[in-house]
């Protein structure tokens, strides 16, 4: 079989897998409609700013947390956001503001934010202004998560106090009550969900699941209940022959790692797979960085979140994780047998930008070529250049 024939077969195979994913109804509902179905069940929805909110806590108190990233399917324009944010705010912030200020945003009962980055920390009052202009308001729960290392005096104690304050605020606002038993139950559910995410990711790494389909499944978790997400993943793993048999289909040959805040947009994922890449390692904030670590079951939320945050998968936005991050990336690259590393840079995300040159340097020392791509709010319009670069990168890696 010549190279062209192999390439055509692979494309055909991948398209079939994508099609199967679509048949299952994944990605067919936009975030708003997913939230609406949650609301219709009587849930109180807490819209959480990215990246790593304390989801288990909200869940344990009978609230339904959704993470406000991946909103592009619900916000077709950024007109409202443009009245409040300059064009150099990242797409995550602009989509978030647009969604909250739109009529669709009325579906939420509250917002939660923490100091994930300089842009996000400025948003609560901007949103307040935007909502007020339309005679609306939403309770906003703000929390400072310590960004100095745990060894520094005061960080753990401060975080514990903040968790307690948050619990009291939630109780007061929504008339709910914290229960250690419920918390333990929620922690167990989220732990199960995260383990399933990791299981799916390992199948992607082995070439048994397309990365596109995996991304759709993970995206479900932002706007669904943890129970439904677990059921979806279990069902998928059980029923789909493609998931049951790891050896089905040709495994794309070139193992790469992708890194960034959000997964690449669909067009780029298609291009990535058409170019014959296998995502053997994942360093995406809304994916691996989010589900990699869950502490053991606990009924003390303060201890739990000290463990959760300080042992979190390293992320450029978790400032204390800088030292651990380099070692993690090295391990990820060597463990995955990666031949290339693709940065999916979120335009204007300086937390990510500062790290890229150093990561490129250490990856180069490991003999791993890198490809930095940049995704902006107009990513659908600008995808052609990225696709061409991905194809060229593939050709280069194949020699």
């Amino acid at each position: 079989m010549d190279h062209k024939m192999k390439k055509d077969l692979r494309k055909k195979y991948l398209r079939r897998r994508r099609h199967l994913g679509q048949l299952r109804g994944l990605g067919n509902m936009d975030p708003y409609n997913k939230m609406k179905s949650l609301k219709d069940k009587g849930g109180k929805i807490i819209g959480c700013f990215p990246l790593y909110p304390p989801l288990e806590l909200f869940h344990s108190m009978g609230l339904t947390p959704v993470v406000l990233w991946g909103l592009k399917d619900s916000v077709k324009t950024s007109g409202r956001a443009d009245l409040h944010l300059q064009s150099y705010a990242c797409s995550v912030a602009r989509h978030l503001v647009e969604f909250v200020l739109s009529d669709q945003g009325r579906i939420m009962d509250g917002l939660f934010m923490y100091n994930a980055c300089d842009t996000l920390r400025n948003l609560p009052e901007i949103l307040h202004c935007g909502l007020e202009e339309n005679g609306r308001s939403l309770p906003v729960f703000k929390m400072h998560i310590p960004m100095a290392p745990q060894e520094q005096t005061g960080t753990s104690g401060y975080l514990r106090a903040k968790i307690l304050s948050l619990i009291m605020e939630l109780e007061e606002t929504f008339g709910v009550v914290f229960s250690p038993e419920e918390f333990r139950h929620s922690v167990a559910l989220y732990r199960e969900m995260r383990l399933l995410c990791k299981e799916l990711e390992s199948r992607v790494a082995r070439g048994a699941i397309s990365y596109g389909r995996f991304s759709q499944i993970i995206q479900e978790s932002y706007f669904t209940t943890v129970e439904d997400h677990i059921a979806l993943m279990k069902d998928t793993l059980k029923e789909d022959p493609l998931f049951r048999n790891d050896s089905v289909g040709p495994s794309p040959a070139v193992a790469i790692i992708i890194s960034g805040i959000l997964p690449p947009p669909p067009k780029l994922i298609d291009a990535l797979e058409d170019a014959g890449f296998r995502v053997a390692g994942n360093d995406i904030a809304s994916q691996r960085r989010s589900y990699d670590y869950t502490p053991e079951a606990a009924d003390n939320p303060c201890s739990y979140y000290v463990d959760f945050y300080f042992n979190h998968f390293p992320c450029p936005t978790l400032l204390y994780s800088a030292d651990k991050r380099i070692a993690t990336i090295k391990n990820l690259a060597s463990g995955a047998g990666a031949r290339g590393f693709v940065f999916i840079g979120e335009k204007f995300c300086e937390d990510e930008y500062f790290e890229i040159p150093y990561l490129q340097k250490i990856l180069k020392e490991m003999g791993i070529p890198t490809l930095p791509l940049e995704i902006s709010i107009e990513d659908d319009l600008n995808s052609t250049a990225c696709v061409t670069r991905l194809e060229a990168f593939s050709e280069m890696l194949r020699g």
Partner: protein
Amino acid sequence: MSEEQKAKTGHTKTEAGKRLSKIIFNDYMRLHQKAKEGAFVVWIAIVVPAELFSGFENVVYAVPESHAAMSAGKGVGPLQCEKAEGNGFSPDLCSYARIDLGTAFDGGKDSPTFGLPKPHLLVSDNNNCSLLVKWFDVYHREWGTPHFILDVPFCYEQQKDRDFDYILSQYRDLIAAIERLSGQKFDARRFREAVQNTGEALTQWKRFLKVASHRPSGLTVFDSFVQMAPFLTSRGSRELVDHYRLLADETEDNIAWGIFPVPHEKYRLLWDNIAPWHQLSKMSARLAGLNANIIAASYTYCMGSLEGEFDLYAYDGGDPLGYLARTQNFSVCPHGLELRYRSMQKAIKEVGIDGVVFASNRSCKVYSIMQMDMLKRVTRELNIPAVMIDVDHADVRKYTEESVFGRIEALLELIDVRRNHALS
């Protein structure tokens, strides 16, 4: 010389201006000299309380942001930025960071101060901007220099007791870290003296800024921008107190003698954001030509005040560490919109402002993202016209003078229209 300079900048260099040049030159030379002689060198973010280092006999500090501002002012900003960009750093990163990275990775070449001596410790904080932590991490990784992060909660309202205690505990950690790394003992007496000096210097600073209330104003904001520099390089020193006292004296004397930077001042403006370091002379001269004067800035009046305030928060001679913890959030960036509005409202009333220039600064998102709502609120609630212009504090390549002045002139026309309307 003075006439030539007046033609170029709109006014002559004051005695305080001449003295400032000497202080800054001496500060950098002393820094290099002491480092060469074996002093323990700390690089700090702009709002790390440098008085802590005065508590040690042989610890010196450098402020990369201040050095970057000076580089931009001296015209080498784009050159250093390009060096950083050549090393893979995105042009969308803060231009201070790019200037500093470009300078450091080129061994201080092209720097007006021969760069900065290599640090033994990096101290960042995340209240002014969390990216300072990322920026210092670059050096931490490249050079293996220890990096201490001061984690300071953002203020949506005035500082809470828990936040105060948290900051205090970190100062104690920082002192212990320096003791461990430098082998030097912290001297509480020296430290208290430094805080006392800072308190006095800030009293004089506020006195200096007060001359803006006079009509015409005794200063331009460009004077105050450049005069901030020694607060960063000489913080806690007696020299700083003396300089700011002379600065305030001289400026008050000028008013008494009828000497004003914009004698036919017709428009009194307020600036919101970091200074456009590459444009100080040009902007000052062009505004003076329009009889417009920017007389106050959130960037300068925050020094010496608490969040949401405009007046001095004086040091009362009490616990010096407590004073620093309480004023840790003095700069604008760690303040929420409500606090920023409150202090701006006070400034507008006390100084007498006709219009506000919101400088949307690509290199400082934390300062800028919020301005669109600030602008709406100022125009709506204070009935003051305002305009937004695009700048970059240190990268002149992202600045278009005609576009900026087109907007500023529109603001001046709007002020005229309102005045005429009020008269008719």
